[in-house]
């Protein structure tokens, strides 16, 4: 058995850093772990997906449809785009902000603001406005660590392990603000 986590967002939101923190957590806990990342053209403001899997033995590095225990979405539309990757009753953590894709900005289509409504009841949905919380913490850029803190409430990992891994994964200058953001997300 493995734990399957999927992180989705918009290129530039730090999905890669978040998946690397989760990978570090799994290593710290002594699990076998595989991560899958996105590099190259897809990173340029597009829809970005990364995967983290850990357990006694991990085979494929991706999380497939119907298999994610936790889906961390950094943006509302992206949560809707990938919800079917969750297991029935899985945890959907949404940074409930709207980033309009170029197809909406340029008027080709409209943004479906109610896109999460139909998912109610299918999953355990946790909405958070992490951008606002991050601003209160002192830096808008650490919203992803706030979301990670919220996700940590639904994972069986000790707080000091999280903090240790965050400390060695994020850029040295941002360690303190990231720790603060994580703890705020965790509810402390």
């Amino acid at each position, binding site marked *: 058995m493995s734990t399957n986590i999927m992180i989705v967002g918009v290129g530039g939101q730090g999905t890669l850093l978040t998946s690397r923190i989760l990978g570090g957590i799994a290593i710290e806990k002594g699990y076998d772990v595989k*991560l899958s990342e996105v*590099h190259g053209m897809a990173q340029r403001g597009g829809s970005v997906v990364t995967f983290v899997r850990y357990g006694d033995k991990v*085979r494929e590095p991706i999380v*497939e449809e119907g298999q994610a225990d936790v889906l961390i979405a950094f943006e509302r539309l992206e949560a809707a785009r990938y919800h079917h990757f969750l297991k029935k009753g899985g945890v959907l953590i949404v940074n409930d902000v709207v980033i309009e894709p*170029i197809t909406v900005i340029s008027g080709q289509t409209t943004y479906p603001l109610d896109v999460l409504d139909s998912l109610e009841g299918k999953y355990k949905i946790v909405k958070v406005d992490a951008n606002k919380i991050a601003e209160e913490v002192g830096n808008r850029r650490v919203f992803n660590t706030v979301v990670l803190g919220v996700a940590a409430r639904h994972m069986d990992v000790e707080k000091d392990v999280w903090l240790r891994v965050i400390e060695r994964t994020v850029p040295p200058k941002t360690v303190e603000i990231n720790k603060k953001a994580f703890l705020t997300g965790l509810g402390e």
Partner: protein
Amino acid sequence: MKKLLLGNEAIARGAYEAGVKVSAAYPGTPSTEISETIAKYPEVYAEWSPNEKVAAEVAIGASISGVRSMCCMKHVGLNVAADPLFTCSYTGVGGGLVAVVADDPGLYSSQNEQDTRMVGRSAMIPVIEPSDSAEAKEFMKRAFELSEKYDTPIILRTTTRLSHSQGAVELEDRVEVPDKPYEKRIDKYVMMPGMAKRRHLYVEDRLNRMAEDMATDPLNRIEYGDKKIGFIASGIAYQYVKEAMPEASVLKLGVVNPLPKKLIAEFAKNVETLYVFEELEPVVEEQVRAMGIKVIGKEIFTRQGEYSANLLRKAVLGVEDYEAPTAGLPARPPVLCPGCPHRSVFSVMKRLKLHVIGDIGCYTLGAVAPISVIETTICMGSSISTLHGVEKAKGKDYIKNWVCVIGDSTFLHTGVNSLINSAYNKSSGTVVILDNRTTGMTGHQEHAATGKNLKGEPAPAIDLENLCRAIGVNRVRTVGAFDRDALTAALKEETQADELSVIICRAPCALLKGNVFPNKVFVNAEKCAKCGACITCGCPALSKNADKTAKIDPEMCNGCGLCASFCKFGAMETREVVKK
């Protein structure tokens, strides 16, 4: 010590531990991080070459001189490097030589989905394929041994999924391998017809011997389980088989060329139904079929895209058990970044209603809405020669409203050859070099005009203006990429000229380290006429408020001011912001 490594980092680590001394490459997703990782080891000489052909030749030279060497490329880079590698197959090696080639099933960042195993077969070069990071390191070390044992270059094939996945890898020490003594041997290293005929016989014999030996080599192995169903799989596809049907029997191939036919025959005899599960082309399947073995493959598995465990479950077991995706959601395609100089250049071309022949780089995104100016993109360096072809087919007057665009790194890759051709064969076209001072799309690699090398050391920087003049282009000028008036004038003038011209549009990539934008643009809502003209510049930092006034995301805005130049009402105000 165990460490989480990307497949690409593990490949570099394997080469390092195997005692590699020379590595050469041109960046290309998904292969780039191999070179960036190996460059960090002081024991290894590592370079960005201008293109993959040069990189392969550098590695061949190093190998002939007796040291272990490698070159790295993406699948389409192998086409560029094919000429030296096909013949290096005949010469064989001195020190071990490995070409790492990264395929891109699913086209995450490529222009086609070609299968390197086919090229390996055609070049008669052995191909080995790891299935995770730990194997990537081990296989790389084996690749050098096999190269020296069988006197052949080896292709280590990876795919995007493997290259960009991380897995735990046990790190070991580097073993310094003594250099092979250099031998002057024209029978082996001078490939003229008389010598090459004899080497061709050697190559065939080499592959036959290797196929025989690989039947018992641990790179290939049978894992018997339930013998009702057996899969032949290699690389990442092997992991999907183990994920979806852990109880099934598997013949895991580490060597995909030449195939271990004895082992395949044995496996086929012992399982009731045999499947070949391979991404892209039916390379293994067709060879197994040719052995007279009944096998199921591409009739149920696609040739397109990436595979997955779910794909296998659906095709073999008929099982598909998950929620339907939400239909009709707005797509979120990649876009040029806020502050990208390409957007400014394209906005001028769009206003002048030019036909634009494109090339490979971030600027290929200029083909899609709302920018929509680029009309063709084929391969690295193709834009200049494509425009030349249009002119020779239709005449000078036909291309008075055509230009081609090519990035600085792509120009030095293979565009420069095309410019030589255009000058020599009297083209009158207008070539626009989008000079953003880096190799952008692959993540900011140095090149021969940036003044630094792969190791980060200062290096000579080619002067693009002088290079173009030396080729014989008389009309060469440089314009700031954000100077839209100057660019408009230059494009009008040069497209009408009856002579070949080059316009270098220069501004550093918005994401380039150290590129500080001192300004941000703010919307003056009182002046905003809600016309939406600014939005048409296609910057993702722009959107509209509920009252239809323009809105700029201050986190995203890089203050390039392009949107302001679209506003007739002076509602976009550029202000200097104090950087903390």
